[in-house]
């Protein structure tokens, strides 16, 4: 027997509202044009659309993303992931970095993820990163959207994937701040071109985390709060000494930076490593490959989260899905939606599992 996460099949959970509202949804093609013109209101509407789980909204989201993707998709912008334990200073550091980026005239979009309370406690969330990240009263070149992780595994919400793609279409830099994570429950490898781990001085967490062997090594380390003195230096040297990993690249140096977000120390050098890493990825031709691989990883993760391992099998298995996604790297959302709908129809009807092929994809109109 397979089981379906009931809340994931949105709208199917028992609820007071049996009939759906006429939620006003934007025209995706027109919206895309406005997003590409960097209209703030359009960016906000676009993010709302990507967050929306109504069937009609999902269809429009696919259309929106199709309009926004293209060549740029695989080579432009810089997607930065920032992770680390709670209170390490992720938001404060992002704020300090934004000062640098904005100073250089680059537009910045931020997706900040906070934890939701457990479903049995209402599933609500307090989104508290925004104020730590924002440092000037008004700035047209900075856009922050907070997200709750809605009890999904890992330190990021699934919405982060489409949303970061939208933001890449209109901002030069897109930053994703994950929830404060403890040791191993997070998979951050797939969230950005450049992943930065912010360490809390003198906390056992960091070392545990490094030893855990679950994640790929982040590209850049920051040991924040170096204004606190010796503990920060000690942590930095521990990280420096931590055993090299097999997936470590020979041609990247994995810098460890001592910084202080509040005193603004070491920020310039820290900031330069991001540009250097971005350039490294472009020069070695890794950027496009990395993004394609991350996209596939997202699709697999999302399908698995909603339909479980059995769902993945029903969809043809991991390898076959990855192969199909590789065919057209700019249409991963379309492909994901098709797979998802297919699986939904399988799960909702009591059919014999068969291996789907592209031709067999059911007509979109026919499904929920």
């Amino acid at each position: 027997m397979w089981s379906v996460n009931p809340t994931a099949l949105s709208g199917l959970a028992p609820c007071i509202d049996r009939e759906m509202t006429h939620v006003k949804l934007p025209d995706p093609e027109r919206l895309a044009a406005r997003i590409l013109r960097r209209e703030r209101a359009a960016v906000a509407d676009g993010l709302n659309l990507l967050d929306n789980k109504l069937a009609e909204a999902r269809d429009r989201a696919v259309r929106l993303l199709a309009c926004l993707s293209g060549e740029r998709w695989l080579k432009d912008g810089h997607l930065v992931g920032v992770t680390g334990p709670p209170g390490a200073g992720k938001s404060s550091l992002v704020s300090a970095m934004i000062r640098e980026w904005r100073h250089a005239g680059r537009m910045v979009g931020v997706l900040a993820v906070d934890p939701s309370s457990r479903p049995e406690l209402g599933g609500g969330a307090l989104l508290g990163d925004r104020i730590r990240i924002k440092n000037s009263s008004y700035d047209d070149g900075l856009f922050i959207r907070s997200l709750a992780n809605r009890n999904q595994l890992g330190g990021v919400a699934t919405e982060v994937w489409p949303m970061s793609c939208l933001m890449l279409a209109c901002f030069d830099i897109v930053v994703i701040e994950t929830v404060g994570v403890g040791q191993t429950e997070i998979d951050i490898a797939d969230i950005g071109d450049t992943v930065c781990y912010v360490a809390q001085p003198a906390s056992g967490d960091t070392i545990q985390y490094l030893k855990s062997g679950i994640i790929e090594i982040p590209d850049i380390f920051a040991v924040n709060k170096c204004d606190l003195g010796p503990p920060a230096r000690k942590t930095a040297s521990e990280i420096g000494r931590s055993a090299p990993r097999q997936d470590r690249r020979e041609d990247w140096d994995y810098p460890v930076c001592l910084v202080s977000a509040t005193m603004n120390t070491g920020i310039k050098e820290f900031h330069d490593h991001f540009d250097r890493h971005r350039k490294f990825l472009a020069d070695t031709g890794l950027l496009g490959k990395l993004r394609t691989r991350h996209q596939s990883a997202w699709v697999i993760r999302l399908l698995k989260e909603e339909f479980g391992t059995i769902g993945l099998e029903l969809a043809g298995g991991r390898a076959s899905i990855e192969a199909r996604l590789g065919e057209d790297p700019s249409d991963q959302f379309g492909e994901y939606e098709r797979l998802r709908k297919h699986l939904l129809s399988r799960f909702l009807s009591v059919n014999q599992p068969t291996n789907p092929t592209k031709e067999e994809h059911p007509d979109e109109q026919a499904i929920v």
Partner: protein
Amino acid sequence: MVVARKDRDPPWLMRTYSGHSSAKASNALYRTNLAKGQTGLSVAFDLPTQTGYDADSPLARGEVGKVGVPISHIEDMDQLFDQIPLDKMNTSMTINATAAWLLSLYIGLAQRRGIDPTKLSGTTQNDIVKEYLSRGTYIYPPGPSMRLIADTINYTVKHVPKWNPTNVCSYHLQEAGATPVQELAYALCTAMAVLDRVKASGEIPPAEFPQVVERISFFVNAGIRFVEECCKLRAFGEMWDALTLTRYQVEDPKLRRFRYGVQVNSLGLTEPQPENNVQRIVLEMLAVVLSKRARARAIQLPAWNEAMGLPRPWDQQWALRMQQVMAFETDLLEYADILDGSPVIAAKVSELIEGARKEIENVEAQGGIIAAIESGYIKRELVASHMNRLRAIESGDLKIIGVNCFQETAESPLTAGGGDAIMKSDETAERMQIERLQAHRKTRNDAEVRAALQGLTDAAKSGENIMPSSIRCALAGVSTGEWGDSLRAVFGEFRPPTGIDITIDSREVLGKKDQVTDLRERVASTGNALGRPLKLLVGKPGLDGHSNGAEQVAVKARDVGFEVVYDGIRLTPQQIAQAAQEEGVHVVGLSILSGSHMELVESVLQELRSRDLTGLPVVAGGIIPQEDADRLVGLGVRAVYTPKDFNLNAIMGDIVDVVRESNGLERLGALH
């Protein structure tokens, strides 16, 4: 006939916390109050003055002269104390982040009037810790702020010896929900942080340090549980005595006395049946006068219409008369301590001391009070205590007469006049103050102003005591905004943690399980119908620091399943509208208690319109008189909540309905 004994104890200082509109209007009020037998002055400043902005700063809009008197420069100070002899007056100033500045203006004025500063007596509140935790008029980060406090202490000890340079405040902590144990613990931690800072500055020779300790006075609260509160004050006395002896080696017991002033609890004063507040206030006052050993030095009382708006002179007179009846008609002042020897009292005192000691140790283990503020620990503790209090009121476990029980009432003649039972601030005050300030800027010597400000900046950077250069600024005609900005440029600004990220124990919710679970279902189902979870922005526009309501609304909203964005106090309408847009919220909730709701709500609505967010529903809460609530609804606000809406579950149900209605879903109506 029984007459009062001649050898009775002298009464405490009787004060009325007041100030409004302009220096001139406030001066007139002070002189009438003094004529009525008030024995000291307690100055309330407006929010721009408290947060270091000039009256014509965009951030001051709508707030000038509202909740206190605006003081922009030395001429305002002169007018405020017109015909009041500074050397004979005892003046208490509720001023914190800009305390060094207002004190400099006061000293500068004395110098100008040829009065020796050593004759000045009074108090600057000057406690930044409780600003971060409760009161909200902070500016600079903790480090520089503590230094400013140390500077004023070091300066006054030498040059204005009768001045109380700082008043460690626990009053505001109770107003933010603190329990008696928390009040004791955090106030004493604050006092230690201040004294340690002064000691570390090295400006005071060790032999003179006991004098510094003696100068530290306290400003405390007394709530309606007056027996416990009286014990709390005895506990304060005992703990301070022990602490100053062991930690600071103050040998002379006279220098170890716990000296304190009081404002009694206002958080428990109600909007419904406001006449009941009179007996609450009197009972609360009992707590701080009953025990001679722990009696207050100075008392100021709120008025019966506290929860409705600012008091009028008559309301304040009534509060002053409560004190006078207590002091002059009763026989209270004829006895030695009437609680000494009571085992019941002694046991309660020990219990409080023990609880407070534990919490002090806990804070010390975290690196002291400043570290515990930066980490958000103490603020979270306060938010949690307040949440428990509100839950108890909701469930009826904590009875509030006229609010959650005995609600039926005959019509009250006190409020029959509708909106007339409060002080209306002068609509022209802001414009007049701005004109006065701009005229003042033209009359001063610019070169002198520049030189004085440069001196201030240099002192701020070098670490030299800030007072001499500030007094020079005062005499040169520098404005409050210029002083504040010069230090902002050197010190930077700070926003403390909001403390709303508390863990909510599910078992605590069981008391109201039916309503909370019902709400969770409504929130989830409405979110499903709209395609994404309901998202609420709680916004505090303007300089208003009253955060309790916003915090508790945010905590409750999260509890019932909303995704909540709350960025803390003191944001501009522009920042709030921008957040609403970027965050894609379903509803905006504004909380305003400063009286500036008309201006602020209107600007927020306008900012939202300019961002294509006309359809986004906005609700508002706070101290909002009925007629203003009607006007706000006329402007498009969907609902207005005031203190009489004490049931947060009901408010949440209503907000869900507001969201539903704006999205074409039918309302679900009252909770069961």
